[in-house]
């Protein structure tokens, strides 16, 4: 296929954390994201899943340059965003937007819905008159399922789902190419989730959006994504097309995650294999040697402690970072 829209290479985000003494402690890097690579084609959705604290949100923000990357490259249409100056970055931002997790916190409480949605227009389309902006805002509100008559309402007068629609309208109004959705439905009621996810998919089809969809809900990721990436402690465990990942996961962590997805039918639920991971997520300040997952992996061997697993995989487009990916699927 064509050249990728977004090409992320070995992206690292480390935070210096002071360990030791109060006055003269040494800094240890907290590896929130440690060498993640992927690429995205136009119109594709990449789902990113993982536990809390595995670096999902950090990845989304680092791609958009909302967080400074420690090293690595984020190539957007062949240009490396990490090296752009303020002006170049602003120009690039026109095409990349983000939808946040907490719908209310992501809206300025002192601005009306109309002003919030219009803000990107005012930043990038300064030549538009107020009436044009208003028309565009109302048009966008209708597209995301908000009544245009509510332009003058304030965020606290909307429900969570409506607030998230405002957030989506703000992200979509410039007609971006890439949208990072950082757990857009986690804070919503289950009944509203489906609506918002379907809205996102609809907009994606209509606008040919490329999306990075971050979530810890595997069912929603399966519904919306073309490809899925599994993160653990700032590193990629497995990346594959949706069907391959859900049908034949190769990494023991992915297998464990999938086995933990609730199944509505209790008969099926009882019948299926359970994989219980023991232990806690290790501290990213002091990650395990070799494979970071080995402390909780049922397949861990001495090799895992010594050598970091290379990128391998059953076929092109399905990559696994595990020494034992050829072993049969885990089942107790």
């Amino acid at each position, binding site marked *: 296929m064509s050249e990728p829209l977004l090409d992320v290479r070995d992206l690292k985000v480390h935070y210096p954390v002071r360990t030791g003494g109060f006055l003269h402690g040494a800094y240890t890097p907290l590896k929130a994201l440690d060498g993640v690579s992927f690429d995205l084609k136009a119109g594709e959705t990449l789902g990113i899943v993982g536990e809390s604290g595995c670096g999902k949100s950090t990845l989304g*923000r680092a791609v*958009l340059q*909302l967080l400074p990357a420690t090293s690595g490259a984020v190539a957007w249409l062949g240009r490396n965003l990490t090296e752009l100056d303020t002006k170049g970055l*602003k120009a690039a*931002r*026109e095409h*990349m*937007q*983000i939808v*946040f*997790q*907490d719908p209310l*916190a*992501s*809206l*300025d*409480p*002192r*601005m*009306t*819905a109309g002003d919030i949605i219009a*803000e*990107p227009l005012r*930043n*990038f389309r300064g030549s538009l008159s107020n009436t044009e902006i208003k028309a565009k805002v109302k048009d966008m509100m209708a597209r995301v399922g908000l*009544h*245009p*008559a*509510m*332009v*003058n*309402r*304030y965020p*606290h*007068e909307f429900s969570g789902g409506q607030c998230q629609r405002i*957030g989506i309208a*703000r992200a979509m109004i410039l007609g971006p190419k890439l949208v990072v959705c950082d757990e857009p439905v986690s804070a919503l009621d289950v009944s509203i989730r489906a609506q918002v996810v379907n809205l996102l998919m609809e907009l994606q089809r209509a606008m040919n959006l490329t999306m990075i969809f971050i979530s810890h809900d595997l069912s929603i990721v399966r519904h919306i994504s073309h490809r899925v990436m599994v993160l653990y402690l700032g590193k990629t465990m497995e990346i594959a097309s949706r069907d391959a990942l859900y049908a034949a996961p190769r990494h023991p962590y992915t297998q464990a995650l999938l086995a933990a997805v609730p199944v509505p039918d209790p008969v099926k639920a009882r019948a299926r294999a359970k994989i219980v991971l023991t232990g806690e997520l290790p501290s990213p300040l002091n990650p395990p040697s070799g494979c970071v997952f080995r402390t909780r992996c049922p397949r861990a061997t001495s090799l895992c402690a010594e050598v970091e697993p290379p990128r391998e995989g059953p076929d092109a487009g399905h990559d696994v970072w595990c020494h034992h990916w050829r072993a049969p699927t885990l089942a107790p």
Partner: protein
Amino acid sequence: MSSLNLTSTHAGALEAAAEVEGRSLWQDAWRRLRSNRAAYVSMIILAIVALACVALPYALPWAYDAIDWDHVEAMPPNFELGHYLGTDSVGRDLLARTLVGGRISLMVGVLATLVALLIGVTVGAVAGYLGGRVDQLLMRFVDLLYSVPLTFFVIILMVMFGRNFILMFLAIGAVEWLTMARIVRGQTLSLKNKEFIEAARASGGSTFSIIARHIVPNVLGVVIVYVTLTIPQVILLESFLSFLGLGVQEPLTSWGVLLNEGAAELEANPRTLIVPAVFMTVTLFCFNFIGDGLRDALDPKDR
């Protein structure tokens, strides 16, 4: 047919529906403030006092600096001569002097606070939002100014530039913005990690527009409370400087000057102390009640 009509009318009504007016947090706060009786009454009293200070002196028979040569002495209230609250020890009308003094005191209070507001909010928001070295630099500068004693500072200014009304604004403004800057900086620090600021950055907002459009409106609630509590503080400060003889010059007067003169004659003529003291106390109480009311109105955790 009727049902079909209904649906189409309904759709038409939706299309044509006028924009619903939202109620902003400010409007909510204003409603809460008005339902606070102490604050509401204080606002009315304060308005009356301010209006009287501005307009009433023109309507009085005696100007504030006119000496009643027939009665060059402290005289009790005398309605026939037009001295409604009597005169001071050199025969000037006390009511006129108190009202004109109130003009000066209120003006110093409001203007110096506005100066403090402008500098404090700018410095605080910039320091808090940019952080890092800029923050360090600005805040250490604030610390430095904090360490200069006010009276000492004013006396130096007077010695260097002579007695000057504007110097008082400068001196008071230079002290009062420091606390404002610290408050705003603290608020900004907690605001800048909120998601809506991140969203503004993602939408391509420049640093300046984010501070002006998102940070400042959101810290204003806290700042306004502080402003209403700063105004009386400044009025007191001015009185204190005038009391020391560093304030306004005769025959111009202020509440601080009047209190000073009244205190000198406390035994012979307590009226000359009581009249300006009542005016000033009422005003200060009003400001404090309004400040309290505003805090209650703006605080209830936003929504």
